[in-house]
């Protein structure tokens, strides 16, 4: 059960290859009405019905929040993931009817900011596509620093440069271009908010430097959807519903719970929102925590798990579900 969201019946209106790794998908409502309003940074959870298994992955909306005739998402192909992105790239064609969640924003702009400083890495550019559109439409003050591997993999770098000129700065790994992060962070006017979206290593680096340089945590916003990682299969007992289930190698714990007919709350399915937090009744083994929600203390305690992204290895695990 998705908390606070209802489903949208949509049809794929376009599929556009952007570069070697990234493809863009456009959705419209099947009834022809406008889609719900959203704000920059919002994501939707896309239901991928692949034969008899269903994957649900979150993707940031990248279109302008000023235009809700369609939603657009961009997906980077992950050849070693659980297959969600491969399904989208290979199976999804214009005209396919799909179901997506209402948009949810866990990475919204703080509009009290005097200035918005955005740092993107790779496919982490997508929420900023929507945020920059939103800010540009309202005369907002922003600056975007975008790191990509090569110019040809700099997804939408050309579009952003065209739209915003020198407000967008590009860094190419293959040309050894690096953000001078300390200087960038120290030269921002008071009242600036920082937004970072990209690989976990980049987010941790930026958060760490910002904290050291005196950026209050209230001014640092980040989003990292930890896509559920595959792993060794394991068995789980759901104490409340009295079921014992097996979590498959390519399945997340949350998906396995749902497949057993139990309907726990969820929202982001990426380890950030906290909705699917589940109490552990007993365990004998090792937790593989992949979320950004629980505290380190919670992780060590072995009393809680985020089933959307985390796994378990060991003899037994009993959950309060």
């Amino acid at each position: 059960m998705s908390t606070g969201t209802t489903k949208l019946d949509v049809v794929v209106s376009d599929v556009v290859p952007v570069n070697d790794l990234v493809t863009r998908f456009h959705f419209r409502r099947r009834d022809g009405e406008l889609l719900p309003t959203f704000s920059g940074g919002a994501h939707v959870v896309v239901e991928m019905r692949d034969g008899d298994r269903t994957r649900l992955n979150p993707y940031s909306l990248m279109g302008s929040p000023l235009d809700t005739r369609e939603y657009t998402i961009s997906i980077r192909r992950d050849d070693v993931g659980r297959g969600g992105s491969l399904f989208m790239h290979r199976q999804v064609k214009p005209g396919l009817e799909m179901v997506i969640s209402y948009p949810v924003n866990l990475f919204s702009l703080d509009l009290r900011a005097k200035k918005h400083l955005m740092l993107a890495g790779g496919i982490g550019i997508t929420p900023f596509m929507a945020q920059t559109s939103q800010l540009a439409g309202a005369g907002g003050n922003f600056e975007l620093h975008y790191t990509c591997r090569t110019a040809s993999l700099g997804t939408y770098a050309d579009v952003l440069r065209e739209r915003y000129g020198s407000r967008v700065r590009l860094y190419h790994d293959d040309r050894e271009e690096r953000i001078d992060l300390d200087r960038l962070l120290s030269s921002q006017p008071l009242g600036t908010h920082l937004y970072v979206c990209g690989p976990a290593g980049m987010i941790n680096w930026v958060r760490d430097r910002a904290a050291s340089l005196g950026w209050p945590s209230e001014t640092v916003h980040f989003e990292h959807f930890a896509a559920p990682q595959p792993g060794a299969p394991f068995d789980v007992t759901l104490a409340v519903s009295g079921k014992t289930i097996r979590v498959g190698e390519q399945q997340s714990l949350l998906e396995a719970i749902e497949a057993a007919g139990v309907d726990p709350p969820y929202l982001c399915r990426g380890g950030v929102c906290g909705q699917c937090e589940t109490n552990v009744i007993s365990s004998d083994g090792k937790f593989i925590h992949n979320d950004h929600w629980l505290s380190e203390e919670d992780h060590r305690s072995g009393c809680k798990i985020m089933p959307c992204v985390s796994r378990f290895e060991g003899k037994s695990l009993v959950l309060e579900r």
Partner: protein
Amino acid sequence: MAAKTIISRPIYGTLSPQPGKHHLFIADAEGAVAITDMAGKAPSGFFGSAEIVFIPGPEGKHIAALEALKPAQLHVAPSFASLLPRLRQTLTNAHMGLRLYLAGTEGLIGQAMQAALEAGIDHTSMQTEQRGSLARRMQCVHCKGITENVTTQPATCAHCGLLLLVRDHYSRRLAAFQGVCINAEDRSEIPPMEEAFP
């Protein structure tokens, strides 16, 4: 420390050194002691990137103690109103990495916070510590006039003269507690006035 009665009633903490590139302290009277107490916990060289703006008040104490911390700058001001233009200028030119520490009376903390909020600092990002008088800055909800240094309950509005109940309801935007007429039904009813905020 003031007890939490309603959600808007500010709660103050204890100053502690924050990571940052510049440290701006604003204090009045006994607030200086909060700074010197904090200095014991600060890393060496901390005050080399610190500016202290201090309103000593009528007793004129603590200036030497603040000088002894060897801050990069110590500015002594006769009143909050006199330091406000300078504070606004400092905040306008400041960069991220500036940390703000407010210590002393609620009126001082509230008014400095008001200027800092306008400059884009979130109130939860500021260090605050209440010291000295508990006197309140009060806005009369009827005439909107602000009365400084209210120590009694009820209190008389310095502008319209109504007798006001000083509430715990606080406005960060106005940096003032709300005062509401205590005898609106019958003005001849005069409740006893007590020293409530010494």
